[in-house]
């Protein structure tokens, strides 16, 4: 079964610098959607990559593409701007070097809200305007389906504030 909180707790305990993006980020902002994986963009600073590798070891992370081969990510994979589609003991985790048109952690962190969870964690979550920008840039079928939900949630949030 999925346990997004447990993945976030392990990342936080290893002091990994990341931004939460994708479907879980959208839901945390109030979007009534669903998803089956957790997407993060990691800082690619070498010290952070070391901390991320420790966290991924604790999570038993392997690449989803051929789970039977149990391929594990290494520092080189995580330092690139590519997408690492992993499977952990708590569910799928996508570790994304960049999203949209090359947006990396050091840019995205400027477009985040710090959202508190009730277990004491505070998570940097990509804000709705930037999530919309990224989806518009990518404009795949899945992204186009999500865009109306993101836009109407942003409108409703602004209306209520």
């Amino acid at each position: 079964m999925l346990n997004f909180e447990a993945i976030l707790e392990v990342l936080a305990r290893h002091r990994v610098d990341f931004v939460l993006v994708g479907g879980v980020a959208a839901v945390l902002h109030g979007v009534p959607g669903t998803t089956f994986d957790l997407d993060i963009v990691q800082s690619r600073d070498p010290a952070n990559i070391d901390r991320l590798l420790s966290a991924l070891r604790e999570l038993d992370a392997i690449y989803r593409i051929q789970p039977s081969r149990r391929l594990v990510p290494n520092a080189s994979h995580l330092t690139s701007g590519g997408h690492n589609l992993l499977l952990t003991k708590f569910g799928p985790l996508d570790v994304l070097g960049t999203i949209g048109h090359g947006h990396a952690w050091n840019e995205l962190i400027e477009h985040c809200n710090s959202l508190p969870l009730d277990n004491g964690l505070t998570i940097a979550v990509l804000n709705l305007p930037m999530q919309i920008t990224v989806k518009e840039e990518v404009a795949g079928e899945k992204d186009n389906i999500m865009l109306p939900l993101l836009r109407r949630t942003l409108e409703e949030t602004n209306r209520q504030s």
Partner: protein
Amino acid sequence: MAPAPALENGEREYSEDGVDLTLIRWMLTLTPAQRLQVLQNNANSVLRLRARLQPGA
């Protein structure tokens, strides 16, 4: 069947592009932690249902 109750302040149930605004308003009443719990429960419910499907269904 009784008609749906009228909405206050001219609020609509759906946006022009078909988004259910009542679900958004409900989600916005929850804390981030509660929203995460809703998501996790939804996803796990779907996974449990899928696991119960007969092969080939």
